[in-house]
């Protein structure tokens, strides 16, 4: 009879099969590890399932539905804000020839009139006429002061000064042309 048929262990086999404490420790360790892994997995599953996301989504949907009733108002307000931004840029950047001409007129000495005013981009050509050369000189000084104040002008120079002789062979009219560079 073969010894392998007998399922009862002999003393020798019993010693052989007696589990060492390390193996037993390993077995419990492995079981503990598996238990821990399953526990962690279940915890995460429960955390995900029990999160308030669903209720928050519901709340978001309700808020969206509330705002849908004001859709027209939102569109208009958004467009108004966008348009006002564009408008403020236009107003800030557009030319100020009206204010410049106003300043030039206000500073004119009496007896001096503007004969020519040409403005384009950053340059202005201005011709003034007077019967008195002193007035032209005063105005030239005023323009010089306007450059130093740096409000509108960065540079002014006199392009020409024409003197018209009257019938009495005396200087009748003075006409000065200034070229002004804007800031």
């Amino acid at each position, binding site marked *: 009879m073969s010894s392998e048929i007998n399922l009862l262990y002999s003393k020798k086999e019993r010693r052989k099969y007696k589990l060492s404490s390390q193996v037993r420790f390993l077995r419990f360790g492995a079981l503990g590890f598996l238990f821990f892994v399953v526990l*962690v997995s279940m915890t995460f599953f429960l955390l995900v399932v029990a999160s308030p996301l669903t209720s*928050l989504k519901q709340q978001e949907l309700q808020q969206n539905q509330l705002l849908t009733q004001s859709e027209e108002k939102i569109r208009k307000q958004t467009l108004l804000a966008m348009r006002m931004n564009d408008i403020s840029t236009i107003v800030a950047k*557009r030319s100020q020839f009206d204010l410049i*001409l106003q300043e030039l007129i206000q500073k004119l000495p009496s007896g001096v009139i503007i004969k020519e005013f040409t403005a384009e981009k950053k340059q202005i050509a201005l011709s003034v006429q007077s019967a008195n050369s002193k007035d032209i000189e005063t105005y030239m000084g005023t323009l010089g002061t306007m450059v130093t104040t740096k409000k509108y002008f960065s540079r002014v120079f006199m392009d020409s000064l024409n003197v018209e002789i009257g019938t009495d062979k005396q200087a009748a009219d003075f006409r000065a042309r200034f070229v002004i560079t804007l800031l």
Partner: protein
Amino acid sequence: MLRDITTIRTFEDIRLFYFKYKDSPEFSVIGVALLIFVGIVIIWKGILPQTHDWFSVQDEIKATKERIAQLQTNQSIIGGITQSKLDKDYSVAATALPYQKDYAGMIESIDQATTISTMERNDYSIEVGNLSTKSAQLSPQTTITVKVSLQGDAEELQKFLTQLTKELPLSEVVSIEYNDQAANIEVNFFYKYLSPSTTFPYTDPIKILSQSNQKLLNDLTTWRDAQSSLGTPDFLPSETATPSASEI
């Protein structure tokens, strides 16, 4: 043991193999290895994706809370705006910067500026530009040029220029040629199409007017009211066309 494994053929062989080796240290070691393997598989296939899910859910919760807060803010902002004031402000802004070329508005502006400045108006021309709506919308040009010839002195010219800055639609004088009572003025009138890509998501913060823009809007309203009080010239339609909300 290995030799026995190779002889396994039937279920009965497996049972025999189990009873023979179930108490052996090798069997225990294999069992332990199997448990650890299963544990690692659970970590890899279960816990790691769940951890990722959990963090994703936390991010989504945070984003949803922020969106809800924004929606509530938008709701309170929009609730504080009265419909009639919004309609009026919108109409003023759309008149100041129209959504399309506003010929009637341009003619009215020049007409009123001329009247107020007491200048004498000669003929004037308007450079119409592209008429095809689709290509015009793609065009970067947002101005339409008007060339005006006027008669008057420098003070009247200055009044005309000042008045024109207060007329709607908004314009900019780009060139002036004034010589001995005769003025040729080139004026650019502004307009801007509404971009087809403009969207109005509720979750975006509702744009409110800054203090400077509110002040500018008040100025525009004053200018428009003054413009309206002067009346529309007989040759123009009584109302200037601005797009309605449905057209937007």
